[in-house]
């Protein structure tokens, strides 16, 4: 019978001998004490993260409590809050306010645009369409960030394709009217805050779509049916079921879009006005100005803002559905 071949013979021992050697001893040790293996696996990344990453962050934090001697340009390594005082100057507050407003608007717009795309992908896209969705979302992330931004500069320029398209549609007046508005307007889209906003939304959108899609994917379809069955119109189902359950994903995505916008210095440099954002301020303070303490203090701002943002999101119950 063929079964016999697979069955242990009567003479086979019930417990097999150890394979011996260092390898065998290690295998047995890891099986008996799984925590040893865990420790060995985690040690290198924890050391890296702890020393190199957190360490440099603390070095930065420490720098922000130093000050610069305005005459000699030398750094005075004595604990002071003077640099943070400088941060509160009107010009610097302007930079902070401008950046935070931009980050908030970019986040809001990303969430609004991302939701229907993520919803389609989570609910309806199957097989080939799902692959196409992931490709469409990820493809822009594979190409160089700078190339994309310069491409947008061409699109948004005065002689660019967008102006041309609006002209063909006899809608040139719409662009002109928008550009004549204060603050958001300018000479052309590529040198206005509107342009900066558009490019920010374009570049960070995938970071909003993916977490929202993941959150919606975890919402069982029958919850939507149950809501409808209990008398909720599609709008009520969205407000009472879909949105609260997608909220952790939206918050996760907004952490990306918000913090990435807070820290970016390349997009506003290439597309937008000459008025600075936090990232540009950090760049110029630690570069040309050589004011490392102020650059460090500027860097602390997004960290503190994100801290408050997460604290507020948690208090509002954004993570309750997790």
């Amino acid at each position: 019978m063929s079964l016999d071949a697979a069955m242990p013979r009567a003479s086979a021992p019930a417990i097999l001998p150890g394979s011996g050697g260092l390898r065998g001893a290690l295998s047995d040790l890891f099986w008996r004490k799984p925590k040893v293996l865990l420790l060995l696996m985690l040690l290198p990344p924890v050391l890296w993260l702890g020393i190199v990453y957190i360490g440099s962050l603390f070095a930065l934090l420490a720098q922000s409590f130093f000050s610069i001697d305005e005459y000699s340009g030398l750094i005075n390594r004595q604990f002071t809050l003077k640099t943070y005082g400088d941060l509160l100057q009107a010009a610097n507050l302007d930079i902070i306010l401008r950046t935070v407003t931009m980050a908030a608007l970019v986040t809001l717009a990303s969430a609004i645009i991302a939701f229907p795309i993520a919803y389609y992908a989570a609910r309806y896209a199957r097989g080939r369409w799902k692959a196409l969705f992931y490709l469409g979302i990820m493809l822009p992330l594979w190409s160089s960030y700078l190339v994309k931004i310069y491409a947008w500069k061409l699109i948004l320029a005065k002689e660019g394709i967008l102006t041309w398209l609006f002209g063909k549609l006899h809608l040139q007046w719409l662009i002109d009217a928008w550009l004549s508005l204060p603050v958001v307007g300018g000479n052309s889209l590529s040198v206005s805050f509107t342009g900066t906003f558009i490019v920010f939304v374009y570049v960070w959108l995938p970071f909003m779509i993916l977490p929202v899609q993941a959150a919606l994917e975890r919402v069982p379809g029958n919850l939507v049916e149950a809501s409808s069955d209990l008398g909720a119109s599609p709008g009520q189902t969205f407000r009472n079921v879909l949105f609260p359950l997608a909220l952790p994903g939206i918050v996760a995505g907004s952490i990306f879009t918000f913090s990435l916008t807070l820290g970016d210095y390349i997009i506003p440099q290439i597309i937008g006005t000459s008025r600075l954002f936090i990232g540009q301020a950090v760049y110029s303070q630690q570069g040309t100005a050589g004011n490392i303490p102020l650059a460090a203090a500027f860097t602390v701002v997004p960290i503190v803002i994100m801290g408050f943002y997460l604290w507020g999101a948690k208090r509002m119950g954004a993570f309750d559905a997790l």
Partner: protein
Amino acid sequence: MTSAVSFQKVSRHFGSVRAVDAVDLDIVPGEFFAMLGPSGSGKTTCLRLIAGFEQPTSGSISIFGERAEGVPPYRRNVNTVFQDYALFPHLNVLDNVAYGLMVKGVGKPERHKAAEEALSLVRLPGYGARRPGQLSGGQRQRVALARALVNQPKVLLLDEPLGALDLKLRENMQEELKSLQKALGITFVFVTHDQGEALSMADRVAVFNDGKIMQIGTPEDIYQRPKTRFVADFVGSSNVLPPDFVQLYSGQHRWGSLRPESIRVGRAASGEGVSARLVSTNYLGATTKLALDADGLRLHAIVPAGTALPVEGEAVVLTFNREHLHLMDEPA
């Protein structure tokens, strides 16, 4: 009298699959109606057609005399208890139960009071503050029931609501559902693949197969007088007897059915009857199920526990009362 739910030549096709195929159905107001069938037989699609999650490809559906085609689920006074309960994970039990009233604009104190009452009805008073994730399967099932009942639906649909519960709990819930239905007088439409459940709970049963209704009748009708081989086999695993065999005992060349409990098993020497061989015995507690081989025809018999049994492989003689041999409509 208008039917609670009425199907006229209702079909629902998914591509080339005829999930529901020209079904006619009338459910009487206030009855406990069961849709019984194997998976893929179209019973759940029928339930979804009543709820409004599916629209018929052809035919017409009316609920208490009103046409229901094209009416979305949220405009039907029909509520569903879902197979896996579909409780909202981000709401506590009380808000889950009060959901239907909330979307209708009932004020908070009023809807919470109604939800509390519904929770008492399903014997879960004081559970309102918990999250669905903190409840056992049986408790979630009761919450789903309370959430549907609080809306006082005209028809309550139950999609295999007891499938995920263990045996003991399932038996308790069967009794509770039945008494709840009697007390409330609401029409219950119950989908199940468990024939025991359908027979013990329902006033009437529709047996589904391949998108069609094979037979509609009282549990006794279905069990004692199956019309087709499928019904005989599916409901209570009756012995299906081929026309040649039936002819010997009834004189008619038709398919027949014989309940396992109608067969008496005697020793080979005990007299006349169908001679057979005992293949195996299967102890079921109160009864013992015997598998028998009567010259190539596989038969099952159920005898009370404690009956003196022949050993496996022994020759036996089978006898039965000819009145118990039921002739089916199905052509030979």
